[in-house]
């Protein structure tokens, strides 16, 4: 038995609300119409038409690109409903599935009532279905395709499939190369093809031809392999009443997180990427995808939920994140984002040595201090020194583009050696000329007077201890992103060595002096 859902890509797009629920609509694959609605068909739109041509024929046509993932995703509830009526469904492709009729027919009393049950299942979900019952999968597909809207199923009595298939054109085999060859040989229908002796077909067309020949004879060798219904691995925890304290939520989650990981392990999987979705009592939902360098254990899951609940400090790396509890949390969902086979993650016979130990130690630190406290450094691109320092929380993947950015030339960056101390936020300093005035630059970038005195502490005012400037160089212009309000920078850089032997990298921005870094 084959259940066919006509124009499934279109139905799926409508279910996913990518297309309006009624009116002419089409799904486009590679610039051509892959599926279209009945309204569009009435206007003359057919499969395989170019998108421009289709829109000319039907000006109100709504289109959206084809998406195999969406088709499969939307097919999942239909499959679940079918499996409730009759187990052992083999998905040929989204929108087309095969079921062994024998068990279903015995259960429902007859093949007709089994087909009726399948149609009922589709009807309960509000999708259109056609059913064909035949000796082979291929014949059943053809039978389902031959049904009409008024009679939605066709049951071929046993051993009549060959006669049923005989008048079909050879194109029905969906092998364009073979079909064109057969036609040139004067074989136009499946009946003609089926009458050829098997040995001749094998010698002329090879194995593929033999398979097609079997299909044409109604003896399709492809067996119906029922799919194993996927286990539900998501875990949802509801709180009633909602909880608004992080430690309460973490405590409540401990057991469910353990079960979540245990269920994954039972399925032979480990979770390497976890999606945590939090819903609060005002209905706001926040989601975040968490990575893990190895795989999630129960305590890691609880940690991730806790970090997601904690307000995040200003994040220089710009990771998207929702932070802070604003109202009571009523639901936590744990969804495995990416899973991997457990065999790739087993422990070595002698343990995994140092790396394992380091990971455990640092994860413990993270649960003690918060996720942002333990960081892995990388060199990123940029002209300003503290922008070149990219810190990623332990466990998160380092953004891949960082290394690429760092390798770019960055005109205006300072020559090696790099300063050992880079102030996270620039320190205000004073740089004075021989007369005790602040060193300034004219609008053309020319130094007005050479620096003579340096105060590492600008707050001390004029009485702060001064150091003599023994050697200096500059100005080195630093200009970037004049079009960008936030990251615009117009400054001059100086390197100086003061009387105490300390070397500094100074920045003149506007009228003020800042120490960007110290060489020490």
């Amino acid at each position, binding site marked *: 038995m084959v259940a066919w859902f006509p124009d499934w890509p279109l139905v799926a797009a409508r279910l996913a609300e990518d297309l309006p629920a009624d009116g002419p609509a089409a799904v486009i694959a590679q610039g051509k119409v892959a599926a279209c609605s009945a309204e569009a068909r009435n206007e003359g739109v057919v499969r395989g038409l170019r998108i421009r041509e289709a829109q000319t024929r039907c000006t109100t046509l709504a289109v959206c690109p084809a998406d195999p993932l969406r088709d499969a995703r939307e097919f999942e509830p239909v499959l679940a409903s079918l499996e409730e009526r009759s187990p052992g469904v083999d998905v040929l492709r989204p929108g087309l599935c095969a079921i062994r009729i024998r068990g279903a027919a015995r259960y429902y009393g007859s093949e007709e009532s089994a087909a009726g049950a399948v149609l009922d299942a589709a009807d309960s979900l509000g999708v259109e279905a056609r059913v064909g019952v035949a000796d082979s999968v291929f014949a059943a597909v053809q039978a389902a395709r031959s049904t009409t809207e008024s009679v939605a199923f066709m049951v071929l009595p046993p051993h009549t499939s060959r006669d049923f298939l005989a008048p079909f054109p050879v194109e029905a085999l969906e092998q364009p190369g073979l079909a064109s060859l057969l036609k040139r040989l004067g074989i136009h229908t499946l009946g003609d093809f089926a009458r050829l002796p098997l040995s001749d077909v094998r010698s002329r067309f090879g194995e593929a031809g033999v398979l097609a020949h079997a299909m044409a004879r109604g003896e399709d060798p492809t067996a119906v392999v029922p799919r194993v219904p996927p286990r539900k691995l998501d875990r949802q925890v509801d709180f009633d009443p909602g909880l608004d304290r992080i430690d309460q939520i973490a405590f409540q989650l401990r057991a469910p997180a353990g079960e979540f990981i245990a269920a994954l392990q039972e399925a032979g999987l480990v979770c390497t990427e976890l999606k945590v979705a939090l819903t609060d009592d005002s209905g706001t939902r926040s989601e975040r995808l968490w990575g893990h360098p190895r795989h999630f254990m129960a305590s890691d899951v609880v940690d991730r939920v806790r970090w997601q609940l904690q307000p995040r400090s200003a994040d220089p790396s710009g990771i998207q994140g929702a932070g802070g509890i604003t109202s009571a949390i009523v639901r936590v969902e744990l969804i495995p984002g990416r899973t991997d086979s457990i065999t790739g993650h087993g422990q070595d016979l002698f343990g995994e040595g140092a790396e394992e130990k380091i990971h455990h130690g640092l994860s413990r630190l993270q649960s003690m201090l918060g996720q942002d406290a333990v960081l*892995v450094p990388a060199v990123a691109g940029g002209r300003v020194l503290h922008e070149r320092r990219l810190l990623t929380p332990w466990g998160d993947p380092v953004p891949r583009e960082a290394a690429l950015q760092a390798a770019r030339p960055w005109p205006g960056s300072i020559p090696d*050696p790099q300063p*050992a101390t880079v102030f996270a936020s620039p320190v205000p300093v004073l740089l004075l000329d021989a007369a005790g005035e602040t060193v300034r630059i004219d609008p053309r970038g020319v130094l007005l007077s050479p620096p003579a005195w340096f105060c590492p502490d600008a707050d001390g005012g004029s009485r702060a201890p001064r150091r003599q400037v023994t050697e200096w160089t500059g100005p080195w212009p630093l200009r970037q992103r004049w079009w960008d309000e936030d990251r615009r920078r117009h400054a001059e850089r100086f390197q100086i060595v003061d009387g105490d032997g300390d070397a500094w990298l100074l920045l003149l921005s506007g009228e003020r002096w800042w120490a960007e870094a110290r060489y020490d």
Partner: protein
Amino acid sequence: MQGRRAREHSLPVVPALKRVLPAGLRPGGVYSLQGSMSLAMALLAGPSLNGAWCGVMGLPDFGVEAAAGFGVALDRLVLVPDPGERWLQVLAAMTDVLPVVLACAPARTAPADAARLGARLRERGSVLLVAGNWPQSEAVLRVSGQDWEGLGQGHGHLSRQELRVEVALRGASRTAVVDLSGGVPEKASAYRIGA
């Protein structure tokens, strides 16, 4: 116990620092560094080039690029810029898993705490480098002066650093001049500092 310690290999230092610490860094030792972050980075570079993981705690201004220039492998470096109130616990947790940890000195260290941490370090065989004073240190490396080359009056750029390091090692004190620009091994020549 003592016999096992003595046989344990000390952690290597980069060639430029051979004159400062000829025997390398002794596992379980605390080294107090005063006056130079570059010296601390050069000390981290030795074990890091040999595949050890390093940790840096309480130094939010740590120049990552300079560290890479000295030969510290950034993919085996972990930073904890802000340990918060629990300085000692965090440091102990880090030294438990990382063989070399560089930490800022706390404002005040009780001798009992220092002794406890020292015992833990000896048990784990980790090396602690403290930027600042530490009451019970194996050696004190103090930078008494530094010379820069490459800069003139309005021209040039900093290119070469020379440190005068006073080493107080087990009671004996001496001074060594360290040229850090030659301190980067060939392996890290992509980051070579100095002209």
